[in-house]
């Protein structure tokens, strides 16, 4: 097929426009990749000359910054375990039992959770945590996130479990398994991809959060990385760009690594039921 001239020009124009839009999105990412390795990084994009790890040395020399990464890990992993375990058990029960009004329960929880994790609920959350004597503890952050994320996690997982035929567990029970055995041997492995989705989603949520730990935590040695980034501002409020860039890169690595790991291990792929 012969391309007419106008179609040819049109295609070039379209590609150029697409490239321009792409570049607009790529620039901040390029800065994000270059700046940490540039000892004289500024807000403008520049190739590091020379490439150096001095920014990272400074970051790792800062005890507060390193402790904050560790704190982020404690809070995220703690929250993920709680959300993952509780959501799995709750979603399984909601999906498989014949409780009246179980649908309504999920939807009401879902509705309230969007309020609970929003900033409107910050004052009551602070008061509750304070009354429980948990202010300035990892547990406060973990519990608050678990409360906020659980309904959505349950909703996602329940949907997932609903799509898995009951006959898996039924066949296990007929074969002689107790309900608990049937759950661990048959149901759990089949719903594991759904649990992985929930785990990744809640990890990313907790790892990236700022407001809740900022409000519930006070002492420097409890703060997660998202809050600690503020320590790379001078007292006048201007960012120390070199450190900020290096720390941001370190801060985003766990999430990237988690995605890659899950994608390699599970491929975000679901075991379908056998064709019915």
């Amino acid at each position, binding site marked *: 097929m012969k391309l007419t001239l106008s179609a040819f020009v049109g295609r070039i124009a379209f590609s150029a426009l697409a490239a321009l839009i792409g570049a607009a999105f790529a620039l901040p990412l390029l800065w994000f990749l270059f700046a940490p390795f540039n000892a004289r990084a500024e807000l403008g994009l520049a190739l590091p000359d020379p490439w150096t790890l001095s920014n990272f040395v400074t970051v790792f020399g800062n005890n507060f910054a390193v402790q904050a990464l560790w704190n982020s890990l404690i809070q995220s992993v703690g929250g993920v375990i709680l959300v993952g375990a509780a959501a799995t058990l709750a979603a399984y029960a909601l999906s498989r039992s014949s409780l009246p009004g179980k649908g309504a329960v999920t939807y009401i929880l879902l509705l309230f959770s969007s309020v609970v994790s929003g900033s409107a609920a910050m004052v009551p959350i602070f008061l509750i945590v304070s009354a429980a004597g948990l202010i300035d503890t990892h547990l406060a952050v973990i519990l608050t996130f678990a409360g906020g994320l659980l309904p959505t996690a349950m909703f996602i997982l329940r949907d997932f479990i609903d799509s898995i*035929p009951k*006959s*898996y567990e*039924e*066949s*296990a*029970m*007929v*074969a*002689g*398994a*107790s309900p608990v*055995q049937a759950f661990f*041997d*048959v149901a759990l*492995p*089949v719903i594991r991809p759904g649990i992985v989705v929930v785990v990744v989603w809640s990890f990313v949520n907790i790892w990236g959060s700022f407001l809740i730990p900022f409000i519930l935590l006070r002492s420097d040695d409890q703060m997660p990385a998202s809050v600690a980034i503020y320590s790379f501002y001078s007292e006048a409020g201007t960012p120390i760009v070199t450190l900020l860039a290096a720390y941001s890169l370190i801060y985003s690595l766990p999430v990237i690594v988690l995605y890659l790991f899950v994608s390699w291990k599970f491929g975000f792929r679901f*075991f*379908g*039921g*056998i*064709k*019915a």
Partner: protein
Amino acid sequence: MASVEFRSVTKSFGSFNAVSDVSFSIGDGEFVCLLGPSGCGKTTSLRMIAGLETPTLGQVLIGGQDVTHYHPKDRQISMVFQDYALYPHMNLADNIAYPLKVRGKSVSERHGRAREVADVLKIGHLLDRLPSQISGGQQQRTSLARALVYPSQVYLFDEPLSNLDAKLRLEARGFLNHLQRDMGMTAVYVTHDQAEAMALATRIAVMDQGRIVQYASPIEIYRLPATTFVANFVGNPPMNLVEVEASHGNGSLQLRADGLSIAPLPMTDVIGKALATSSKLTLGVRPEHLHIAQGSAPNTITAALFANENMGPESLVTVDRADAGRVTARIFTDDHLQLGETVTLAFSPEHVHLFNSKGDRIPAAGE
């Protein structure tokens, strides 16, 4: 192996009775098919034997023991599911051996036994595959192997062949038939396919709307259907049913319907009783008992040709009696019949079935 018994079992879901007051017993070593259209309660009945549903009323007995409130795991039963329910994360060996795993058997015993059963079912070479890597027929045999890997009192089948293509289904049906007679197992088999039920069962329970309409051997169900429902459900194609207006006198019964010419039948007491309620009866003739005749002889049905379907060795010739329904004949012929042509189908009086106005069979003299 053991017997199974239902004593006045009712199962309600809300206000809907899936099974209403059903009682029957299955002898040791019998192969019973629960046959009926979807929603007739056959699967619910099977699930109550398995313990996956609990009866609202009544008792379920296995081997003479009341197991109504037993958990499935305590019933010593095997079940093959319609969707096979193979565990997608386990290979075939682990799938087949799962019942042995929950019974605490060692890995070597489990895999040894799984191989034995798999070899019998000709899937021994697939043991380290995942269920998603084998064909539908192989999946079906895997689920059968899982049911056979341990000794059970009763083997339950929930439409196990309905996901197979026609050729595989015939093959699997023959194999199941041989296996059951060979092992002498007590089997309960749910199906909506009357041919499957006829081929496999020692007795068939035909179900409709939560009740058992007839419970008898396949040959009796075919020869003496208890109701028009059974007559219309069993047979391929099912029995032709023609509404007739009856009158009697001088010890003979005269039936009249459009296009129907029938010699008077001998009058009996039971027919008299049926006619006392209504003069409307239903006449039934199986398609295989009809043949093409010339002219207007007695014992014929005459109507315009509706369809002529060639099935290879035989043809299905259907005539349309306008508002009164259609009649199909199964005949060995390759006659050139033209659409719209008038066709006469003849039958002999001993092949006539009569049903009263409620659809119940009127026994012929000597039945």
